[in-house]
């Protein structure tokens, strides 16, 4: 199970690299086109054309890895189809708008760049970017539902007393609870149930508000946080690319490009941690109690005035540890049967539904119904605790790399653009560095800062996703569904050989994709020549 979880994570991470560039590069390109429109300086158009080649290759790679992730998730975790068909249906269907328009507009941008005015190109690119962001909004909303299942109201709380309520009850609690119990009692995964003909009609409506996912406060904060992070990472990678060119050639032309990127990057990197990141943490505290305890390494409840002030707005508020939640579990002396009855599900109903779905429940149903919820609650806390060290250190490493990235952004911005007060200070620091380290010059310092920005923010993003995903375990849908319940019934889909093969394929495609991007980006002049040659060949062939 862990191997297949790791495989999915690998696929998603690799896709994330290309998504970040897809979202971040247009920021740089719009800046270039705007400056080209204002100044007529061909430098900016040349840079836009190179960025367009990189963006198009990157987009193709993003589309392939996205297809792999999409199919991978649905075929290896087909139990999630119930989510796709209910809560995630509206966002995923709307995502089709985003994806098709994104591709169509990107192709239009590529073929018309340099042939229509810069203003029109900005318009097409901005429209493309808007749809790319729209896609990111919808996918993040779906992921956020797995983190905080908005619309299930008190269902999770019925199983875990320390859980909050997740918005209004927009789902049919009876059916969800019945399905969960039937799956446990039959020993079948959700796929084995969902794949039967007529099953959906037998189960009937499980969700009353198909847009509930988009009404979650957790989702909207996550959207702002994740998209901003992706834009920052993408723009930082572009910045590093041009900083390397500046370092390698010393051509001041690259300084102009770096200045065009660093200003919006500085603004975004200041907003992200201070406003959006803070709000994200507040949402985690509110809706992911175990994740918050893991982040803080709180096996036992503790006090930390500064963190408590930031998290709760009250310095005296305790930071609850897993011990606090374990105590609540201990005191929760109900059986699964009583939980089921509390939402109106009795044994007869379960047997009837099981029979309609063609499942054998037999004696296991009694065993499941008589299970003490306390045992389940404690066992899951223990599973969460096993991940505490990893999540805790990953989170603080993430904070450290974010701080590094922000400091480097401020410093580079002050070097490249005139910022009152800050630029003279950085200039003074620069002179000291040159004096102390004779091997450092302006070119290497620019490269170093750009590298700190790119690696700082990329590490922050990778670790942030790690904390988000691992921190929600042992559940696939927080407080409701385990990975084992949604995994494929196909034996070899989870076999070591298949996982190894899929991992090889993912790594091969992604690493060669990254290599191709670096290769293309580092051969700007060759690319221009190549594009010219292709055009000439096409035209001469046509004549």
């Amino acid at each position, binding site marked *: 199970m862990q191997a297949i979880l790791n495989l999915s994570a690998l696929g998603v991470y690799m896709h994330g690299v290309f998504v970040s560039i897809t979202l971040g590069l247009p920021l740089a390109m719009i800046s270039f086109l705007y400056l080209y429109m204002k100044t007529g300086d061909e430098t900016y158009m040349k840079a836009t054309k190179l960025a367009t080649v990189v963006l198009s290759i990157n987009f193709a790679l993003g589309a392939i890895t996205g297809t792999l992730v999409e199919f991978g998730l649905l075929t290896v975790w087909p139990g999630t189809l119930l989510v796709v068909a209910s809560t995630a249906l509206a966002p995923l269907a709307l995502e089709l708008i985003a994806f098709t328009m994104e591709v169509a507009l990107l*192709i239009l941008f590529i073929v*018309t760049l340099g042939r229509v005015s810069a203003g029109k190109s900005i318009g097409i690119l901005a429209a493309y970017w808007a749809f790319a962001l729209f896609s990111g909004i919808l996918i993040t909303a779906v992921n956020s539902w797995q983190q905080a299942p908005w619309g299930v109201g008190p269902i999770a709380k019925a199983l875990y007393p320390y859980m909050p309520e997740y918005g209004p009850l927009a789902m049919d609690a009876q059916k969800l609870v019945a399905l969960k119990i039937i799956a446990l009692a039959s020993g079948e995964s959700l796929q084995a149930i969902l794949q039967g003909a007529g099953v959906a009609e037998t189960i009937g409506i499980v969700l009353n508000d198909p847009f509930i996912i988009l009404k979650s406060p957790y989702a909207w904060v996550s959207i702002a946080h994740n998209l901003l992070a992706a834009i920052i990472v993408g723009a930082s990678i572009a910045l590093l690319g041009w900083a390397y060119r500046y370092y390698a050639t010393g051509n001041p032309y690259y300084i102009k490009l770096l200045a065009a990127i660093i200003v919006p990057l500085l603004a975004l990197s200041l907003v992200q941690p201070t406003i959006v990141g803070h709000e994200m943490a507040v949402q985690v505290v509110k809706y992911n109690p175990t994740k918050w305890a893991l982040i803080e390494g709180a096996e036992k409840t503790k006090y930390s005035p500064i963190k408590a002030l930031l998290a709760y707005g009250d310095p005296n508020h305790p930071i609850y540890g897993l011990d606090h939640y374990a105590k609540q579990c201990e005191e929760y002396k109900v059986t699964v049967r009583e939980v089921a009855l509390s939402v109106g599900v009795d044994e007869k109903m379960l047997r009837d539904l099981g029979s309609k779905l063609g499942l054998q429940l037999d004696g296991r149903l009694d065993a499941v119904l008589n299970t003490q919820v306390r045992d389940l609650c404690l066992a899951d806390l223990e599973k969460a605790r096993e991940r505490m060290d990893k999540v805790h250190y990953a989170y603080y490493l993430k904070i450290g790399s974010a701080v590094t990235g922000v400091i480097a952004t401020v410093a580079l911005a002050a070097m490249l653009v005139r910022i009152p007060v800050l630029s003279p200070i950085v200039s003074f620091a620069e002179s000291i560095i040159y004096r102390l380290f004779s091997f450092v010059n302006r070119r290497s310092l620019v490269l170093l800062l750009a590298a700190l920005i790119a690696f700082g923010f990329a590490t922050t993003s990778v670790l942030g996703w790690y904390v988000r995903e691992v921190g929600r375990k042992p559940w696939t849908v927080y407080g409701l569904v385990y990975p084992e319940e949604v995994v494929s019934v196909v034996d070899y889909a989870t076999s070591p050989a298949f996982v190894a093969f899929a991992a090889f394929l993912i790594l091969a495609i992604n690493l060669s994709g990254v290599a191709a991007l670096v290769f293309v980006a580092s051969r700007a002049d060759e690319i221009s020549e190549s594009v010219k040659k292709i055009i000439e060949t096409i035209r001469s062939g046509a004549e």
Partner: protein
Amino acid sequence: MGISLIVHVGLVSVTLGTGLITAIYRYLAYKNNDIYLETFARRAFRLLAVTELFSGVWGTVITVVMAGFFTGLFAMFANVLFTPIVIALIGIMIRIPAIAAFWYTWGRIDPFRHSILGFVMALSGFMIPLGFRALMSDITVPTAIGSFLDNRPFGAFDAYFSSLYWNLYLHTVLAVISVGGFMVVSIMALDGDAKGVKIAAPYAFIPLMLQFVIGPLYLLQLHFEAPYVFNALVRVDQLLQGSGGLFTPAFAVKVISALALLWIGTKIYSDAKKGVINPYAKYGGFLAIFVAVAGEIVNSGSRYPYMVVLDSGGKRIEEYFNYYINIGDVFPAVVVILLFLVLSLVVFTVAAYYALIRKFVA
């Protein structure tokens, strides 16, 4: 799902066919040291490059629609036909990077290696229907799905033991080569390049002629193995009595348009051999796409009202439909989505026009 399948099939027919033609002529250009053939290959490839990503997107549209609206079907495919899906996915994973690598390394690596890359690019494309066509064939004449529905054990490759599958796959391969050929003919004709038309014409015409052998064989096979589908396509008497034959008009349109294409193809081919561009050559590509799309409509539509056709009728579409939400609640969103999908087609057509007709290249 029907709309997305139609658009997808129309576009992938172009990309798979032009991919093969590109690879062949890139190799011949190297072997004969012929600059013209290399230019020809580049121009065929341009068609592929413009179409590939957009066609792939419509594959994603099909996936989302199937998973979201035909959840039970997807869950069953993900179990019973897991292997064909994986084969198709591997094809996609190889195909798109191979296209990017083929484009970028053209003129940068030695031509022989580049030619090999071209064949990897072209043949990986044919791996995609090698996988996905198993899904279509297995719901028309269930083999693996048949075992599954009868609660019998089934093997990972059972779908490939269906004779209908191989006929359908061959039918598909010939169709995409022919569509690719006709599209290249059209582009060459629009450029006024008689030599290009002459080179591309056999790729359009010969597979089309073979289709007139494979097609009737496929129909005959349906007669024996999927009589319901056969009746839906040819039983005009049932249509008149209101008891079946629902797709006879569509099938008739398909056959007539295929015959028209054959007639045009014959003219184009014979004129091309004389070095003359037939006036119809410009439009052959579009008619070929129409025939491919019509073929897909009759092929998939003739199962209606069943999703899986069985001897005694079948599993009805609604048995796999999504009843987990009230679909009426998302209907306005579905309408908006459809409008945007149409808009994306318009934007793509404008882009393709600028790229292929006006020859705008950034």
